Structure formats: structure tokens, C-alpha cells
């Protein structure tokens, strides 16, 4: 099973680099996925979502890729900025149910 605790996977990048944050989701029946950004002391902030009938979706500076074969989701952030520093969570949902199941999270640290 997945371990929980105080230590988050951390990705450290330089300002201007592209960042890729990965997530393995658990339920093959999940058909909707969301990436959230959580800054210290704040709630999860919606970034981008994707439905299971798509492989890729692009937003402003962000792209989400979905590989249903291996149950893998990634978030790509182009030209990462210091303001992107936060914890990023993927969340999955099964159609017909309202529950979002969150992943453990990855901390992104962007150095100027």
C-alpha cells in the first residue's frame, strides 16, 4: 500500500526550466482526473483537469498527460516560475460518484 507521512517527494528546478510532476492513480474505473496546487496555508487550487477519453490537455503553461494503460498521470509546467513553488496533488474520480481521491502530493521547489 501507499505510505503516508511527513516526507513528500520533492522536485527542485531552476526558474525557467520545464517541470514534470508524476502521479500513479489507483483505480482503473476512474474517469476524471484533476491536478491541484496547494500553497502553504491555503486550500487546493484547481489547475487543470482531464477526462479519461482524452490523452492530453493543455492549459496556460500547463499540460496534463494521461496514460490509462499504466494508470499514470503527469503535469508538465513550462517555464517554471518561483510562484509555482507549492505541493501538487493529482485527484481521481469515478463517474457517478462525487468523491475525489487525492494522491500523496509532490512538492515543487523553484529556485530563482
Amino acid at each position, binding site marked *: 500500500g501507499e505510505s503516508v507521512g511527513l516526507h513528500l517527494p520533492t522536485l527542485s528546478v531552476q526558474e525557467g526550466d520545464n517541470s514534470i510532476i508524476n502521479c500513479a492513480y489507483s483505480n482503473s474505473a476512474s474517469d476524471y482526473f484533476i491536478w491541484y496546487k496547494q500553497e502553504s*496555508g491555503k*486550500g487546493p487550487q*484547481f489547475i487543470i483537469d482531464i477526462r479519461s477519453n482524452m490523452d492530453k490537455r493543455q492549459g496556460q503553461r500547463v499540460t496534463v498527460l494521461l496514460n490509462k494503460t499504466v494508470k499514470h498521470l503527469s503535469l508538465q509546467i513550462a517555464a517554471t516560475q518561483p510562484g509555482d513553488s507549492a505541493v501538487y496533488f493529482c485527484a481521481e474520480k469515478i463517474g457517478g*460518484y462525487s468523491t475525489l481521491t487525492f494522491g500523496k502530493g509532490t512538492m515543487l521547489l523553484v529556485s530563482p
Partner: protein
Amino acid sequence: EPEVTQTPSHQVTQMGQEVILRCVPISNHLYFYWYRQILGQKVEFLVSFYNNEISEKSEIFDDQFSVERPDGSNFTLKIRSTKLEDSAMYFCASSETGGAGQPQHFGDGTRLSIL
């Protein structure tokens, strides 16, 4: 941009006391949720609420918990007799509908500290 607002931002309570956490969801949203996040851990679903009744709840949401929409704008979470392990951030969220393709939008949470 419309947002979910939560009050208070921090609540300190003695063990065994009742607490009520308050939320104002986004005005045109019909589905409301409560989640919690224990320090350093992932966000966990507690309950969803639609049409004045609970639509789903997790095993965390036991008889000590209740939710209510007392008027047209507020959505509350009550913990009847708090325990030390209830200490966490509690997030309220709302969405336009409950279907796939509808993101849930979160408030900034209430930090609940049980002494």
C-alpha cells in the same frame, strides 16, 4: 472570481467540546463537500451533500460528524464531541454539478486544533 470561503481560519477547542466549521460555497454551485487533511498527509474525503441531503460519506464521517445547510448560503460541518485525532485542516469545496468534468473548488480551510 467566485471563491469558497471558510470561517474561522483557526479554531482551538478542548477535547470533548462541539465545534462547528462554516463554509460559504460558490453561489451557483449545487454540490458541497468536506475534506480533511492531517498535517503532512493527503487530503481525505469526508462527505458530499446535494439537495439538502448527504449523497456520499467516507468511513471517517462517523456519528460524531454532521453537515447542514441552514440557509441559502452557508454549509456547516459539526463535530459533536471532538477527539485529539480530529486535529486537522478541514476544507470545504463546491462544484456546479456532481458529474465527471466538474472540478471541485476548495476554500482555504479551517485549522482545527484539539487540546
